[in-house]
């Protein structure tokens, strides 16, 4: 199914918010699920979490960061243009129950993935403490949206330009020791870069707080057919696309998850470099054409 881009927004220098038409996804979506898209016929299939669904409009929202060729290509599409293929919702929905007090930790684009979960947890009556973080103020996304659905919000940036200076995981570490929350947190949910999620797992382990992470493994089909997304919980092999994407953080072998993300790095860099060159060449061509036109114009 083709998916038309209804609205396109740049949230920060490298993160975009796309509302796309995908009625089949919108009507079935539950917090925590993702789609797999293919920008064009020759493109790669990449998974992106659904940040919002609007069944009444038949649309979903994808928030993505430009990290390689596919996301760069996606970021260059304009409103009204189409994404060739979009399949979903895939993966299991998040477990949404009344837990009591819950902490949600989001880093980078993970904040967008967290949004529907925070929303659903709050709607289920939980007291949700959200911790979000990024490099600096300009890279912090969806602060207002998260704030609107959280009981309280903490922010951390690496350079201290917004909220506290430091990492969200530092904030988490501190909060867990605070009088009002110690021993009361029923669950921690963390979505962000794998290193952040690993750190969260390390922090919550001694507190014995059930901790859930959403793993961003490399995927192809997203339906359990290829095994590319396999992760290891102790010795047990699980497929992130159909058994996850959320797993018990205290059982995930993060070293393998992080290592496997590098499997295609050399090729990804090559694709990126070649594509950038093509883009530059195209821009040069346009410039020369414009100049040539201006040249003739000034002659008459």
């Amino acid at each position: 199914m083709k998916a038309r881009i209804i609205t396109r927004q740049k949230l920060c220098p490298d993160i975009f918010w796309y509302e796309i038409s995908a009625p089949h996804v919108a009507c079935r979506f539950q917090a925590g699920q993702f789609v797999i898209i293919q920008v064009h016929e020759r493109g790669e299939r990449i998974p992106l979490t659904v940040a919002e669904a609007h069944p009444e409009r038949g649309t979903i929202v994808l928030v993505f960061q430009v990290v390689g060729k596919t996301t760069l290509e996606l970021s260059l599409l304009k409103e009204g243009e189409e994404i060739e293929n979009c399949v979903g919702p895939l993966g299991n929905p998040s477990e949404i129950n009344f837990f009591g007090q819950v902490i949600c930790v989001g880093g980078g684009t993970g904040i967008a993935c967290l949004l529907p979960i925070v929303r659903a947890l709050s709607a289920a009556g939980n007291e949700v403490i959200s911790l979000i973080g990024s490099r600096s103020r300009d890279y912090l996304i969806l602060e207002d949206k998260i704030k609107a659905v959280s009981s309280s919000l903490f922010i951390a940036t690496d350079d201290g330009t917004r909220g506290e200076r430091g990492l969200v995981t530092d904030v988490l570490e501190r909060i867990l020791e605070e009088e009002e929350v110690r021993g009361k947190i029923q669950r921690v949910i963390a979505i962000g870069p794998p290193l952040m999620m690993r750190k969260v797992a390390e922090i919550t382990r001694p507190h014995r707080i059930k901790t859930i992470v959403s793993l961003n493994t490399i995927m192809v089909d997203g339906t359990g057919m290829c095994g590319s997304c396999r992760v290891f919980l102790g010795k047990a092999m699980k497929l992130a696309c159909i058994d996850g994407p959320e797993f018990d953080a205290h059982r995930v072998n993060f070293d393998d998850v992080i290592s496997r993300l590098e499997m295609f790095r050399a090729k990804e860099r090559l694709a990126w470099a070649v594509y950038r060159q093509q883009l530059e060449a195209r821009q040069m061509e346009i410039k020369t054409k414009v100049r040539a036109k201006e040249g003739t114009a000034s002659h008459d």
Partner: protein
Amino acid sequence: MIKIRGQRVPVRELSPEQRIKNFSSVPLGYSAEEAVAEARRCIQCRGAPCEVNCPIHLRVLDMIRAIATRQFKEAFFLLKEDNPIPAITGRVCPQESQCEGVCPLAQDGQGINIGKLEAFIADWARERGIKEEIVIKERPHRVAIIGSGPAGLICAYDLRRWGYQVTVFEALHKAGGVLQYGIPAFRLPTEVVDYEIALLEEIGVNFQLNFFVGQNIAFDELRHKYEAIFIGTGAGAPLFLGIEGEHLKGVYSANEFLIRVNLMKAYRFLEYDTPIVCGDRAGVIGAGNVAMDAARCARRLGAREVFILYRRTRKESPARVEEIHHALEEGVTWMELVAPKRILGDEQGWVRGIELVRMKLGEPDASGRPRPIPIEGSEFVLELDTVVEALGTTPNRLFLKHAPELAVNRWGLIQVDEKLQTNLKGVWAGGDAVRGNATVILALGDGRQAAAAIHRVLSPEKLG
């Protein structure tokens, strides 16, 4: 009329040196002259063992007779009546254990090349745009088909010809099942598969791609919306050995390896965006068709040495003879009576080798083949930088999870009665979802049989 004559007309092929540089079809197919010459060798024996031994009882003799007398069009229509996808089965059927295996001429290795004749006729018609005229008398009944592999496609084709409103749901972005994502283009060119699917679209079969039944629509809801359902979801979930080292970079399931290459066209990386990494020395565990396909893909992706690692011997290999032959010609090394114990990696998490143990053959096991037994103390390490596990596949548990009321056996294969009906009213199933790892022709046969059963139930008046 026609007497036994001489040798099989050889099939022209790309040379191994040419082939390993591209993904073009290896057999070049018969020319009209060659096909006629080959057809003329047929002795039209009584009892037609080839037809008896064909799972769908294709009228082989009639087809061959028509080719021998250059009535190609007649041959095509006749073929098409029995088998809607001859261009495909002609290329992928295990002929040596079906039609060709029982040809009386096969005793001295000169059996009629039925597969290549079948493919010739189908290609001849396709190249000339010759198609059957299908007149459709519309019926109001809606039928849903889950999965677009050969079972689903044939079921859709028959039901649509009889006038039903047919929708095929497919999870991937391209239809065809294994024909599209699994079998490589050098065996089954993509345009051959695409052509058959385009024909289905032309007669009005509706394809809903990017649609996973269960995730996109509840199975129950689908049952309410359609009067009959055929499940042809295949057995596409990969099996892993469960040994140490499977997390390493450079280890693939054959499914991932082949999906990247075939469906995503990773062998044309930069033109296409999906990457694949294949090192210099690749080991493929297993020795079926899937293993041969993976090994031959690895050669084409630039691996200098490719090993087939098999715990039994060549005699027990379930692969088509032609595939083994082609793999060996292309320089694949056959290493038998070895079983993997663990995969070894380096500090960066990349595969560096595999520890194997030598095996010997013991008493026959449940499959009737001698059971391989490890020889203690015979372990050794083979250096590798790519490992592909081709151990077979199982039914997709994601679909089964969404259809818990469907009766399955302990391997997750859907249980059906002799008419392919499941335990649920209005739901039939066939192909690999029922049989496990089987063949295209059996899937095709199931699709047909289920279509007939559905027709009988939805339009009982027609059959009197």
